[in-house]
């Protein structure tokens, strides 16, 4: 098996089981530099579990995950983050008790140890960076607002912003438009098109219209295995895919 690859991320033969149930079963998945990959699949197909495995939240039972040719299975979450993988959760996961500004400030990838955090200075550069990202995620006028008072869609954007400011090489988004209004979805699609420049992105999404508007390549997962992979037309016309997912 090829162990050295040109891929940014390579999952080979990855399995994980929970109490005997194989949530992910001998999965192979390769992501190129600069690629936008959408993962779709019915409920329970293992989509979120795949992201959990990549970012170290769930331990791999078997197989190998390589990021930039380094084995990352068994590493701690924060180490994987520091290698350049960012993760957005399904429900907005932000710091409700802090302001939008503070949420973004904490996500700047510097001063991450105890001493660095204790003697952190809010420099002009920090201010600028936070304001730039806030403008991108449509929250420029909400910097002083407590994050808990944001709308659901704004919380989703804030979490995306917190990832952007980390500047990861691989960005993983779990249902970024879930619970958003139509106008928020359109804005989010624009936002995603902007942020996928210069980085690889894995998106899990249910909303097929949204998928069509952003997708390059689509991977269909079913029962922990890859059912089909290719561009949107190819996947949509695949009879197996129709049967398990799209047809109903």
């Amino acid at each position, binding site marked *: 098996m090829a162990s050295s690859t040109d891929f940014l991320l390579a999952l080979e033969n990855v399995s994980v089981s929970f109490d005997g149930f194989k949530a992910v079963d001998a999965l192979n998945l390769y992501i190129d530099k600069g690629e936008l990959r959408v993962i779709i699949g019915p409920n329970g197909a293992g989509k979120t579990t795949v992201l959990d495995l990549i*970012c170290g*939240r769930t331990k791999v039972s078997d197989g190998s995950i390589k990021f930039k040719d380094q084995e990352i299975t068994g590493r*701690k*979450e*924060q180490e994987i*983050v*520091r290698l350049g993988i*960012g*993760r957005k*959760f399904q429900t907005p*996961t*932000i*710091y*409700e*008790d*802090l*302001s939008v*500004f*503070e949420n973004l*400030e*904490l*996500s700047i*990838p510097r*001063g*991450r*140890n*105890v001493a660095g*955090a*204790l*003697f*952190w200075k809010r420099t002009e550069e920090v201010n600028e960076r936070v304001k730039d990202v806030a403008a991108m995620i449509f929250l420029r006028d909400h*910097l*002083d*607002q*407590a994050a808990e*008072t944001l709308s659901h869609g704004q919380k989703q954007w804030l979490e995306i912003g*917190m990832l952007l400011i*980390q500047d990861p090489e691989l960005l993983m988004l779990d249902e970024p438009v879930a619970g958003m209004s139509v106008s928020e979805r359109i804005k989010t699609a624009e936002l995603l098109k902007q942020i996928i420049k210069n980085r690889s992105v894995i998106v899990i999404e249910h909303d097929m219209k949204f998928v069509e508007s952003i997708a390059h390549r689509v991977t269909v997962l079913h029962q922990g295995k890859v059912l089909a992979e290719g561009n949107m037309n190819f996947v949509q016309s695949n009879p197996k895919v129709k049967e398990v997912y799209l047809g109903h």
Partner: protein
Amino acid sequence: MSMARDDSRTLELIGIALVAVLILVVLPMMLDIFRLNLVGKYLTYAFVAVGLVLCWGHTGILSLGQGVFFGLGGYCMAAFLKLEASSVANTKIQSTPGIPDFMDWNQLTELPLFWIPFNSLPFALIAVIAVPTLAAFILGAAMFKRRVGGVYFAIITQALAAVMTILIVGRQGYTGGINGITDLRTLLGWDIRPDGAKYILYFVCCFLLLGTMFVARFVVASKLGRILVATRDKEERVRFSGYDVANFKIFVFCLASAMAAIGGAMFALQVGFMSPSFVGIVPSIEMVIFCAVGGRQSIVGAVIGTLLVNWGKTLFSESFPELWLFAMGGLFIAVVLAFPRGLAGLVTDQLIPRLGSWRGLGQRQPSPAPAE
């Protein structure tokens, strides 16, 4: 919100200034030395409460074993004072003169090895901080690296408090047992018992407490303080922002324990003894209650809460000694049910907005709900 936070930081500063005036000027003028010495004793618990504001109020780590660190600090100080009080001249009636009285009663004939360094004041002062901090570090590293938290952590700290008491009581030849280390007299020849010395120790305690409050305020205001709040809120997100959460928890737990230890050392100096009744489960939980009553997120609130509850305890138990524990339990229930943010929360949420509206300072009031 950031506006509001700036306001609350200014408020905290005003609060610290008021506490300083209260403990440095008002109380010494109002109270005789007996009562002032009692206040000094209460203030030593306030060190613990300030530590709890950091580790419980801000980070969400509830420790029910802060008495252990208070006690370790106190015992390290008491060990030095006891050795000084146990000179050969002072203890010539003992069968082995020159060792602390309780050792002699327990048939020890020489000073145990680990007691010997406590002949040196610099060593003892370093040990006051280092021993409890090291204990907190070991416990914290063992728990937080394994991601033990919440109720499990609280129970383990409580077990530690129980273990510590049993250890001290059980090894009375080395620790003084249930009576503790008593009859402390001098610090480098300076008698700590007369009223004059008590005044000086009271003020030393005040300044150390104010210093501790400023350290706590610095930590809370730093980015580390916001990471602590973020950890309380969404621990997983903090990890996925690239921080090693365990290290931050260990840091704040050690800091809180070091603060408790300073309180313990000042206790031994001002009260003149140290005993296991300030180490175990009950005092540890009482300290959590002091902090909760004052407001577990407010540094000033914790100090005021400690003073008020202890003042109430003294008043109450002088008149109705057997009712005090019920009153304390009732108070804790009342805090949890009626004002979870403690007295500090009442002041910032209720009193100040009302004062503002009475004085017609309407600018920052929340706008009234629109009429339907």
